[in-house]
């Protein structure tokens, strides 16, 4: 008991003695990191153990796996129209879309009459928070609705801009006055323009020769680049 008290006193005294030492936040973090690393509790990793006591043979596992793969194979939904933009590089986007059966029926009827072609309209804007408005720069891409995806080459004027650019797309019918009847609006995609002045050499980890990606770009994608 006496020994414990003595130790306690020494410790307190020790702490008091060093209380004047000044440590920056950075030093405190470094010490904390070091202690965390060197004195971390040794955690025995536990593997996932099914809570069930059910025992399954290799064949039963294979059968269940095959049944699930067969019965629940991934499929596209046609319940909700959607449009998604993805980044390929500073001069290309990738768009995929899904239209409802009703929209597809309407489009097929309209296309037959050649009145309002289905169009992918891409808007670019300088800020993510800005709502789409008539001052946005936009360009149209003629698409086949049933194709459901297309790589889009960006107009040079946009792609070589130094500014960060946000893209939003709308898919719908375009009338003779360029007004859109939208079926779906996309996510907003942020991509900084490629700066040709820096002439950055694009390397790749394998050093192998470049592979050209030959997306089907027909019909000719860019109809117009317009700022209203």
């Amino acid at each position, binding site marked *: 008991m006496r020994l414990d008290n003595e130790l306690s006193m020494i410790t307190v005294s020790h702490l008091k003695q060093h209380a004047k030492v000044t440590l920056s936040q950075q030093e405190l973090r470094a010490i904390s990191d070091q202690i965390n690393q060197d004195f971390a509790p040794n955690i025995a990793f536990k593997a996932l153990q099914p809570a069930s006591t059910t025992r399954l043979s290799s064949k039963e596992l294979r059968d269940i796996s095959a049944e699930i793969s067969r019965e*629940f194979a991934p499929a596209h939904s046609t319940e909700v129209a959607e449009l998604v933009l993805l980044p390929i590089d500073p001069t290309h986007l990738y768009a995929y879309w899904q239209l409802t059966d009703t929209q597809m029926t309407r489009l097929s009827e309209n296309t037959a009459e050649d009145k309002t072609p289905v169009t992918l309209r891409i808007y670019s804007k300088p800020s993510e928070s800005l709502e789409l408005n008539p001052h946005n720069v936009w360009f149209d891409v003629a698409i086949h609705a049933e194709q459901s995806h297309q790589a889009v080459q960006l107009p040079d004027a946009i792609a070589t801009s130094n500014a960060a650019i946000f893209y939003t797309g709308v898919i719908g019918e375009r009338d003779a006055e360029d007004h859109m009847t939208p079926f779906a609006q996309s996510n907003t995609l942020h*991509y900084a323009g490629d700066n040709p002045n820096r002439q950055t050499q694009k390397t*790749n980890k394998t050093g192998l020769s470049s592979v050209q990606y030959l997306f089907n770009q027909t019909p000719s994608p860019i109809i117009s680049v317009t700022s209203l």
Partner: protein
Amino acid sequence: MIKGYLNIVLHAHLPYVRHPEHERFFEENWLFEAITECYLPLLGVLERLQKDKVNYRLTLSLSPPLMSMLSDELLQSRYLEHLKGLLELAEKEIARTQNQPELNLLAQFYQNFFAHALDTYQNQYQCDLLRAFKQHHATGQLELITTAATHGFLPLLNVSETAVRNQIKIGIDSFANHFGYPPTGFWLPECGYYPGLEHILADAGITYFFVESHGILDASELPKNGVYAPLNCGNGVAAFGRDPEASQQVWSAEMGYPGDFDYREYYSDIGFELDLDYLAPYILDGQTRINTGIKYHRITGGNQAKALYQPENARAKTYQHAQDFIAKRQQQIATLNAPLNQAPIIVAPYDAELFGHWWFEGPHWLEAVLRLASAPESTIQLSTCSDYLKQQPNPQVALPAASTWGDQGYSSYWINDSNAWIYPLLHKAELELEKLVADVRGLALDPLQSRLINQALRSLLLAQASDWPFIMKSGTSIEYAQKSITDHLARFNYCHDSIRKNKINERYLTALEIMDNIFPDLDFRDYFPLKK
């Protein structure tokens, strides 16, 4: 006098391939080959450096799927069987080549190589390589970091920030579960960065990550020190850029060291050269030729007959190439020192599997580089990003540009005609899970329901791996990649459908938990969008 820093980073990753539903599964060999040719030799390098008291620094990124597979008892036991089979084949080769002295010496070389691997794996490490890496970390010389949960390619998952956040969080949690502490550095899968990602990394406690060179050079502000100093992304998280010169010397198919004529030829393997009947016990289903790992030839020019491999010559060449690498870094630093306003750091990241698997002699080269750079007379100081940031705590503030280390520098390797079909399916599943988790929030779920949603999350994570679109584009094992992603999504659909209809078959759920046993501690309740 130290004039500059060199940070060598190895990124170790393999896709999660584990099939308890099959007695043997060919693609599990990816792990087995990497253990024999990469991870055990790398540990051998670290052991020798430690024994010789070499004051090296090295960064090793271990992906969560790799950590999971390395610590999996089923795969550990299968690896032992695999290795014993190779040892048996090498012994058969010694007998077969007894009248061919040069080949016989090589057969003995492989017998020793496999016997040493078996001994160290089983006896020295008790089949637990993660513990061995952890012990080297404890010496203070090896910095361990990690990557996203299943190596998801984040720029194309970013339609859902929740999906990205989840990949990062579970990756870090998985690392902490294995090693007992969270990492400070993060390897972005395929170096895939987009502006904004730094906020998610900061929220997860990460202080630095890596980008491709042009991510730094095309940053929002002109980088004062090029790729030879990190950038502060504006929120305190530092981005380090890959040095193109150091990368080219190792990676380049034309100029890189691994293409030297003294090195072993990867594509010459007895699995494709000897009689099928002889090879039958050691190849796929006894009839399909595969690489065995026994390769008797060295890289030989053009149309000439392949010359025999000479391990001693190859070993000597690794030392020459290490000297060349260090000399070039010294020249580079000397050239850089004048215009830069601080000592440069050269960041040289490589796939760990390059060393030993593709470039058989790579581990010896690495060892020589670390020894040369650590020598007292060296003007280069080996460093890690954590070390560097302690010494240079205030990097220039600028936001890196979107970039990857793939061909062309952006996302085109992971989204093109061969693989773009996966993204609508992945994004749909991500959205469904987010909605499901929101719908059950606040509800009292029974354990079976919770297990089912957790399993749905596991399946989604496994489907998101960047390996599947990469393999589809590269053109090897395409069928397996396609089947993997559709099977994982089907398993997700099954779990999702079962919970929505509240028709839960525990036997089926257990089967899925047995087959996909990764991330035992994940919690679906973390899968929700942050309020902005």
